[in-house]
């Protein structure tokens, strides 16, 4: 198992190299001159040239890339073109906000999705099942920025219960997390339901029933653990998806997260910020994947024995 984890961590290196290379390429070979952007709408060409040279933008592409890699290996991601701030400090200030938003959102999604999915699977074709499935379908169908705007109107303007924006204490996370988590909740509900329906048909569930195991226990002990295996994958995938997709929610709620920083940085061709944010995201994403795989092993002994090999 250790060996497996080590191997996976090792794999992160080529992935990060690849990710940065792709992003660096996109940032370098597309129109838009960072120097021009820094200097704004009125900047004499010589000034722009001067700044380009100073920023090292005139060096060959590969030189620039490897300079970045070299510095990054020493923990130096450089300074933002826009804010002049150390990119690492900036991201470290904002990434946790995105992470906490995503974690709360996924927690809400799991807390809703799994129980509702189970209930709706065990009571297949019941009213409860229909209601939750319709709810789940609406959940995945709604553009989430729209949902967010309406939640603000309902809970901040209408009822005055919750803050409308920003990160001002614990209550401000509720609306953005719901906005971000709704889609995932819906997907997890559907996945849990179908996985549960699948598992409940299995022979070993029949065996359990034939042993006289109470129905409740059949569901919670025998079926659930098996049904969770594909659900864990989905939760992991959704986590990654939410982490990246948080940008819309962050914009609606003026959430000080890294998604908004990244979009802003992409638009402003702030390459150091873009690279560092993507590295952070990709690393987190890979960690989540690893966590999912470890959880797998925890739930499914077959997979565990595979890892040990």
């Amino acid at each position, binding site marked *: 198992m250790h060996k497996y984890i080590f191997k996976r961590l090792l794999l992160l290196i080529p992935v990060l190299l690849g990710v940065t290379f792709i992003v660096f390429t996109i940032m370098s070979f597309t129109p838009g001159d960072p120097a021009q952007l820094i200097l704004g709408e009125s900047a004499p060409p010589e000034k722009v040239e001067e700044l380009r040279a100073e920023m090292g933008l005139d060096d060959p592409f590969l030189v620039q890339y490897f300079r970045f890699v070299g510095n990054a290996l020493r923990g130096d991601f450089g300074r933002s073109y826009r804010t002049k701030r150390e990119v690492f400090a900036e991201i470290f200030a904002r*990434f946790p906000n995105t992470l906490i938003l995503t974690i709360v959102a996924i927690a809400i999604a799991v807390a809703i999705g799994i129980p509702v999915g189970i209930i709706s699977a065990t009571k297949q074709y019941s009213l409860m099942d229909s209601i939750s499935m319709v709810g789940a379908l609406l959940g995945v169908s709604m553009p989430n920025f729209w949902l967010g705007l309406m939640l603000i109107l309902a809970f901040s303007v209408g009822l005055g219960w919750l803050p409308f924006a920003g990160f001002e204490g614990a209550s401000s996370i509720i609306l953005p997390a719901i906005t971000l988590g709704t889609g995932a909740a819906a997907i997890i509900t559907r996945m849990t339901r179908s996985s549960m329906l699948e598992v409940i048909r299995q022979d070993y569930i029949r065996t359990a029933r034939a042993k006289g195991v109470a129905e409740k226990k059949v569901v919670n002990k025998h079926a659930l653990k098996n049904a969770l295996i594909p659900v864990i994958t989905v939760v992991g995938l959704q986590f990654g998806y939410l982490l990246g997709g948080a940008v819309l929610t962050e914009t609606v709620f003026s959430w*000080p997260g890294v998604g908004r920083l990244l979009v802003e940085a992409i638009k402003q061709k702030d390459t150091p910020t873009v690279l560092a944010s993507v590295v952070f995201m990709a690393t987190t994403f890979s960690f989540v994947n690893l966590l999912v795989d470890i959880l797998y092993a925890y739930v499914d002994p077959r997979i565990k024995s595979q890892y040990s090999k």
Partner: protein
Amino acid sequence: MLKNKKFIVILSAIMVFALVLTGCGPNNPEGDNGGGGDGEAAKDSLIIAQGADAKSLDPHGTNDQPSSRVSKQIYNTLVEQTVDMELVPGLAEEWNQVDETTWEFKIKEGVKFHNGEELKASDIKFSIDRMLESKEVAHIVESIESVEIVDDYKIIIKTAKPFGPLLAHLAHTATSIVNEKAVTEAGEDYGQKPVGTGPFKFVKWDAGDKISLERFDDYYEGPAKLKTVVFRNITEGTNRTIGLETGELDVAYEIEPIDKGTVANHKDLQLIEGPSLSMAYIGMNNLKEPFNNEKVRKAVNYAIDADSIIESVLHGAGQKANSPIGPRVFAHNDTLEPYGYDPEKAKELLKEAGYENGFNTTIWTNDNPIRLQIAQIAQAQLKEIGIEVTIEPLEWGSYLERTANGEHDMFILGWVSVTADPDYGLYPLYHSSQHGSGGNRSFFTNEEVDKFLEEGRVAIDAEKRAEAYKKAQEIIVREAPDAILYYQTQNVGAQKSVKGFQLHPAGHHSIYEVSFE
């Protein structure tokens, strides 16, 4: 079983890591952010929302509006510009012009920086030298050749050539005076650790979220009335209004046009409106067919109904422009007649120019929603005279780069004459030396205009300058290198309990006088 234990250890390690990370997030619930106009007696904390986070609080490191709005509270400039655009002493007590290129400034004594240092002539020399080194703001002070320290409270500024608008430039927020020691100590991180002489000192910056300032008790003009000021970053325009309504914000900049009525009619809120120094225009590439033909450019001017744009896009928050610089800017030429909306005349001009059947062209814009709307209206109106326009939204980066390269046909941009001096408002946009990235993206070339703009720049005598600029405006409007649309009215929404808030036409409003009733 043992394996399970290991698993739990790993899992908890990851959880702890996540918690540590998240623990770094803000966890200081704002104590008193309510009080939507209910007049709490002791309220002395102001929360202001603007649409973007400041980039840097190093005034010499950036020249963007969101940063200036915060910097304005932290720093002072030698000369200051009142809300009526009058130049008054700031850190300089008085000044006089020794000769055409030499200015002597006497600096106020006893001015303290937030770090306790006293303001000395050396700080001013250091600041101006630093500006000259800065890529971002050097153009504002580029006329300055040298700063000489006479004594601790007297300096002499020399310009290479006579430079008329020097005082206005020294009032620009980008010429804020910084403390040499603080800058040296903070090094590259100065943008996050600003130290100025202003009425509020910097406390904390939650990146992307808010900047907290605190009253500076040793402010040389006496302490401000508010104890703390927080600048929050609320991106969505409609949400700023919502924040005012819920009482979570005290002041919100740039209320969306559609929301103005809501704020104005709200029992606890007030809408403060006033002129600004910004102008919006549709540029045309004067080097490219068919816009190299003056008649075509004029036809475009006649075809576009600026009033309907002001009405539907800005909900009336604008004034039809008759010149590239607005009435608040020095030497605005108020005798010029704006092109009226006259599609018939436009068609006639097109016919004269040989485009009886119109032509196809493109209009570029960035993703600014106002500009996108203008583009759509312009598209519809130009269609009336037979010009088929395709709208191409571009990313800001490529927009700047490609318009600088002259790849465009038409484009939409705006310009703010921050210094309220025509040099700032006209030179970059219309002088032939500024083609492309310099700011003249219409590639307008007119020797006479060049001459007048240079004249206005070097002349010291106000009347002489005014005359040159008025003539320049006349030619520019006549030759119509672009279609000037409107001067934008700026607005701010605030709780009714907020008193003493005054709009500054340049967009960065001083909070010094603000208080709660």
